[in-house]
């Protein structure tokens, strides 16, 4: 999985590309979120547009990242989950747990609200 980050206003967007699966993708996700938190940023938008696949370890890591961000009094939201990832989030009812948006503009606006 490949990761890049960019800043829009006070929000750090983490663009994820590839598979979030056990042993690699999940660890890369963890490191990316921890790096952003380590830089003192706590308003995080995970862009899942490029994520093609996720297993239970990847789902667990999403939850784990969210909890770490909240512990730091931060906010983590999701944007652009593709078909397969959206299906998994809905199936596990995590679409009710995470604040999820279909467009980046909408997601960024929600941080300002």
């Amino acid at each position, binding site marked *: 999985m490949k990761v890049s980050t960019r800043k829009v206003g006070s929000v750090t967007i983490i663009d994820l590309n590839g598979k979030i*699966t*056990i*042993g*690699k993708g999940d660890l890369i996700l963890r490191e990316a979120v921890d790096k952003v938190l380590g830089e003192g940023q706590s308003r995080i938008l995970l862009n899942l547009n490029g994520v093609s*696949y996720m*297993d*239970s*370890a990847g*789902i*667990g*890591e999403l*939850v*784990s990242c969210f*909890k770490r961000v909240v512990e730091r009094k931060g906010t983590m939201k999701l944007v652009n989950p593709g078909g*397969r990832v959206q299906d998994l989030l809905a*199936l*596990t*009812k*995590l679409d*009710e*747990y995470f604040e999820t948006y279909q467009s980046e503009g909408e997601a960024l606006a929600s941080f300002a609200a």
Partner: protein
Amino acid sequence: MTIPLHVEMTLNSRVDLANLVHAASDEICRIAGLDEDSMLNLGLALREATVNAMKHGNKLQESRPVKVTFHLNGRRLEVDIMDEGEGFDFERDVDPRLPENLDKTSGRGLFLMRTFVDDIRFARNPGKGTTVSLYKKLPRRARGLKRA
């Protein structure tokens, strides 16, 4: 008349090797004529079962093998995943969708397995390990096996 397909893989208990099993599953699903969705579903269920066998069955001791066997006949695809340990606790079937479980960082593997195959069976073989069997029915149009 179609000859049933039989493929066996033996893996060290290293979770990255689940990718190898997943790739084999994809190829065998193509041979079976399963559609893209079925291929993804079985691949995910098998990945979860393989990782569970490595983690909970073999306690991630690399030298302990997990054996994965694919049996494809004209009616269904069966995949058996065998570990050498006690296996995972398949009787402890917690629903990860319950509100109190949503923030759990693990415990969704068995749920995904059950969701993405037509049938799943567990067998504990005392002293020999645990076998999880996943079953996927072939659609009628796919029952003549394709040659790769």
